[in-house]
């Protein structure tokens, strides 16, 4: 019965792209965090989180994403989201993620934005 999300990682230079597939709850959030930190450790300075295949998140998952964002900020890196459904976009904004991380409609735009920053 579990719909917990899978996370795929791709690296292009110093940009790491993590794509999620499924429900981001606390377990999903932790998986994203684990992979994000691994990417940061191996030299990535920018993260793009593509949530195209995710339609449901919960506030605990989001709070873990906030932690990831904080870590990225600590290292003076960049984090951008893309592929958000209108509802997830709205929810992120409610929780203040938009203040510190940029949200883009497509992966290409997100990568472009963090690569040049």
């Amino acid at each position, binding site marked *: 019965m579990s719909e917990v999300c899978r996370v795929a990682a791709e690296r292009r230079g110093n940009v790491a792209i993590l794509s999620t597939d499924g429900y981001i709850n606390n377990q999903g959030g932790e998986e994203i965090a684990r992979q994000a930190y691994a990417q940061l450790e191996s030299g990535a300075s920018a993260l793009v989180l593509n949530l195209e295949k995710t*339609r*449901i998140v*919960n506030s605990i998952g989001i*709070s873990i994403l906030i932690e990831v964002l904080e870590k990225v900020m600590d290292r003076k890196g960049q984090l951008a989201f893309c592929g958000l459904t209108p*509802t997830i976009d709205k929810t992120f904004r409610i*929780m*203040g993620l938009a203040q510190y991380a940029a949200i883009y409609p497509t992966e290409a735009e997100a990568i472009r934005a963090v690569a040049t920053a």
Partner: protein
Amino acid sequence: MSLDANGAREISLTIPVAPDMEIVATAQAAAVGEFIEMPRDKIDEVKLALVEACINAFEHAQARDDLLHLIFRVGRENAREFLEVEVLDRGKGFDQASVELPSPEKTFSGRQKRGWGLQIMRSLMDTVAITSGEGGTRILMRKYK
């Protein structure tokens, strides 16, 4: 076939307090929402709000019988159709007044990462009414089509 005028269009669902059971609830919400042809984005909002209501109950309620009771209703008010969800738990309840509302500043300074559930529910649903006491908590949320 159509229901008698007195027939309530109510759908009950009881789920165990267990990980990912909130997904069963959202599936039910989707079924009802699609039935009244609510736009997809609005259904998503109902689902996210419902997820928050459920995990709120899971975490705070410590439900005595380990079950969460939901009732889905469709109705009409002033010619506007709505979908309503009632989430009931028989846990220990909480005092709404004492819930410190979260804010982005607080979240980012590391002081409060939880407590977003109520905020999200209120932002995504049109009306939210919460009653909580010794016998449990009842969250009643409604979204118009």
